[in-house]
């Protein structure tokens, strides 16, 4: 009787320790997916190492989605679309899908407004990055964090 609270405390302590120990490898061991390093290299392949400034781009995506299989997304660039000064392309990247690219959109002065919408798949809660390339060669970006309840892409075919 005297022993039992003590042993219970020790058991809880051990259990807590075991949970903490098992949590650490879960963080370190990542599947072969688009880690921030592959995200960075995918961005570099578009920008060629040029400086990417924050601003001009607006990335509209719900902050919390239930189903990662279809997530509406809109990218708007607050920039004129004149023949001599326009948005040349919009590139969208992700952090944790199996591939870092989501889509590339090539625009021109014919578009009038630099805005595109589509629906994307997200395999995990992660950060989305949209980068716009202007005709003067500068790059502008916006990021958005999305929490996904049901992941896409990797589930089994039934």
């Amino acid at each position, binding site marked *: 009787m005297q022993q039992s609270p003590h042993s219970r405390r020790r058991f809880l302590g051990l259990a807590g320790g075991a949970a903490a120990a098992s949590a650490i490898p879960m963080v370190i061991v990542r599947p072969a997916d688009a880690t921030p390093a592959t995200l960075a290299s995918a961005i570099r392949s578009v920008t060629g190492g040029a400086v990417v400034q924050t601003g001009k781009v607006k990335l509209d995506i719900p902050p919390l989605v239930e189903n990662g*299989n*279809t*997530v509406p997304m809109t990218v708007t660039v607050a920039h004129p*679309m004149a023949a001599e000064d326009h948005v040349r392309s919009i590139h969208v990247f*992700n952090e944790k*899908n*199996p*591939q870092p*690219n*989501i*889509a*590339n*959109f*090539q*625009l*021109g*002065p*014919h*578009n*009038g*407004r630099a*805005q*595109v*919408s*589509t*629906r*994307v*798949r*997200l395999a995990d809660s992660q950060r989305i990055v949209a980068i716009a390339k202007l005709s003067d060669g500068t790059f502008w970006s916006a990021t958005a964090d999305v929490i996904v309840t049901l992941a*896409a*892409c*990797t*589930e*089994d*075919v*039934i």
Partner: protein
Amino acid sequence: MASALINVPPKAKRGDIVEIKTLMSHIMETGYRHTTTGEAVPRDIITSFTCRFNGTEIFRADLFPAIAANPFITFFATVSESGKFEFEWTGDHGFSETASASITVE
């Protein structure tokens, strides 16, 4: 069978910016899924979407497996003359579909 849905306003004033909405029915199989027996399901996606207005390319998109099934893409176009928008989707396993929509500019 693949089929496209296009939404382009039938009429516009000269110089208007019109919104163009496109939807193409396609499975967009990512290539990252497995069957219950463990076999990988081969990738089958649309890789490219192009829009031309009276023969001039005005919009192009490169798509990746991260695009949801039945790719829905909307964008804008400035219209200065009446004409025809032509849309083309191409993808894996020789997938190729086209659609068109006309607009009258007053």
